[in-house]
């Protein structure tokens, strides 16, 4: 390396400006959004959140970035922060149904059911209701042990299409898994793993579901998740527990 190789000269800089090396993607908000989705599917919510922030650094009016940040904060269990952040996002995108739905989910998971129901009611009353809004509605209703939650999930899945449909089915499967409807969750998660075989999160959720139902395939699912995302503490712990489950857990299939 020569002594002055890092010095910048006006003419050289001008030549380089605007030129993008071949094969490298433009690192705009869309790029970081895709990266965030990739990390989310890998089960790394912290990195996904960081990528959403970077997407917003590129374009602070990029709506998926704001929504993604809120969803990642919810995934990380930081419900109060998610509620604060969704308020900030709502300043920029007032009365946006998805943001209202995200706030409903944050409130519901934080145990503030009255607020959750109010925000969910508000979001569902808007015109352009998306599948995310229906899923949030389903989560709020599941918390209230309502039997019509399943209808909301079906509605969410039916209105989502294409790649978005996969994500919605994954979210629906995770939701049902968390709320204890393992048989229904298994159907969604199996369909998603067929479509997204390289997603560690999907394999992990499928494994959890199978473990709860006492199925031996859970071990393979956890191992697949670890293959996609090595040293993932959550999957490692789940696999260890599944392998070491006791006599009664095996007997009762739990």
């Amino acid at each position, binding site marked *: 390396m020569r002594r002055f190789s890092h010095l910048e000269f006006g003419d050289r800089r001008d030549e380089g400006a605007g030129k993008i090396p071949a094969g490298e993607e433009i690192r705009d908000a869309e790029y970081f959004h895709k990266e965030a989705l990739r990390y989310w599917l890998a089960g790394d919510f912290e990195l996904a959140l960081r990528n959403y922030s970077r997407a917003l650094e590129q374009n602070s*009016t990029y709506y998926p970035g704001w929504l993604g940040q809120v969803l990642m904060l919810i995934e990380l269990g930081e419900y109060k922060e998610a509620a604060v952040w969704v308020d900030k996002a709502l300043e920029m*995108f007032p009365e946006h149904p998805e943001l209202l739905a995200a706030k409903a989910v944050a409130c519901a998971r934080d145990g503030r*059911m009255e607020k959750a129901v109010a925000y969910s009611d508000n979001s569902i009353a808007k015109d352009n209701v998306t599948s995310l809004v229906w899923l949030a509605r389903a989560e709020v209703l599941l918390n*209230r042990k309502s039997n019509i939650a399943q209808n909301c999930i079906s509605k969410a899945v039916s209105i989502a299409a294409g790649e978005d449909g996969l994500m919605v089915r994954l979210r629906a499967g995770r939701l049902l898994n*968390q709320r*204890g409807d393992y048989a229904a969750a298994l159907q969604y998660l199996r369909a998603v793993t067929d479509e997204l075989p390289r997603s560690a999160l999907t394999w992990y959720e499928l494994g959890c579901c199978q473990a709860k139902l006492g199925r031996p395939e859970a071990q393979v699912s956890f191992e697949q998740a670890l293959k996609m995302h090595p040293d993932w503490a959550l999957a490692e712990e789940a696999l260890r527990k599944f392998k070491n489950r006791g006599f009664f857990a095996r007997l*009762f299939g739990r």
Partner: protein
Amino acid sequence: MRCQQCQFENVPGESRCFKCGSVLSGQSFAVDVHPPRMGKVARPLRAMFRRLRCWHVLPDGGIQAWLPDWLKIMSWNAFAAIILSIVPGLAHLAQRRFRQILWYFAGWVVFLLAGMFLYGSNMGFLLVGLAIAAHAWIAFHASLIKEHAEAGRRAFDIVVLLVLLAFIYWGVRVSAFRDFVWGYTTLTIPYQSVQSGDCLFARYSRARVDTLSRGSLVLVPLRQVAVGRANWTRARGEMIVQIVGLPGEKVGISNASFVINGKVLDSRRFPVPRWLLGADTWTIVVPADSYFVSTEYNVRPQTYTEAIGSACLAGSSEIEAKAVMVWFPLARRGFLRPYE
């Protein structure tokens, strides 16, 4: 400048949409895009408070994660709901879905009240059993109905809950009503509207606190009555009997009436048992720490005399409870009248 959210065409140069207020794309401005984060210390504290605030809406984890695998037969939420369901409907009330079990709760209240009203009879026991069943169903409905989908598992849960609740009811009965006891009498006392075979409600504490006066109906364990070579045993272990003679008094019978220290008692108030009616004239002095009590025995009239001392004298320490009301039959239910 078209708004991406509501598609409204705004005047160029505007930073926010005139219709919906959204930030218009291309109007990027300096804004903090890094969300606030939760401190590591706050995480367990918040989780704890969240669990306390709304335990029933949270997914499993936390405490259940500490349990060994063989104990994870039911989730922590289900366990907590069952604990709350010791008071019927409390878990549903906490979950704000009390309306779902409103009729079961009403049934439980009706069965329990009716069972308490008829307690001591077969119908009373049946009603208390139904109350326990309604209670078990409410507890099952609070948590396990969604958790265990298989019919066999559900039936097992209900049976386990029934047994547990039966123990709890028995414990409540023993601890809360330890002062109360039911006893039967063989006497027919017109003054008290008491007939032979009636069930009377007695209290242990009254026998210790109240002065036992003549005419009081008390619960005593009847001793074995031995007459000659024939051994007459009591029909029941404990019986409600009437105090006729107080300590130190001289008790006898004359013209089918008790005579106390030469004074004849009213036979409507102090009826003489049949087994004493065919006797010769007799007199007995009641010892200082005893009472002369009257009750019916299946003793032949010819052989009673030697039995009077052992059958009709009850020591002060033997008197367990004092009857306060007629419990069964329902037609005669009411408090006993005091003797002047």
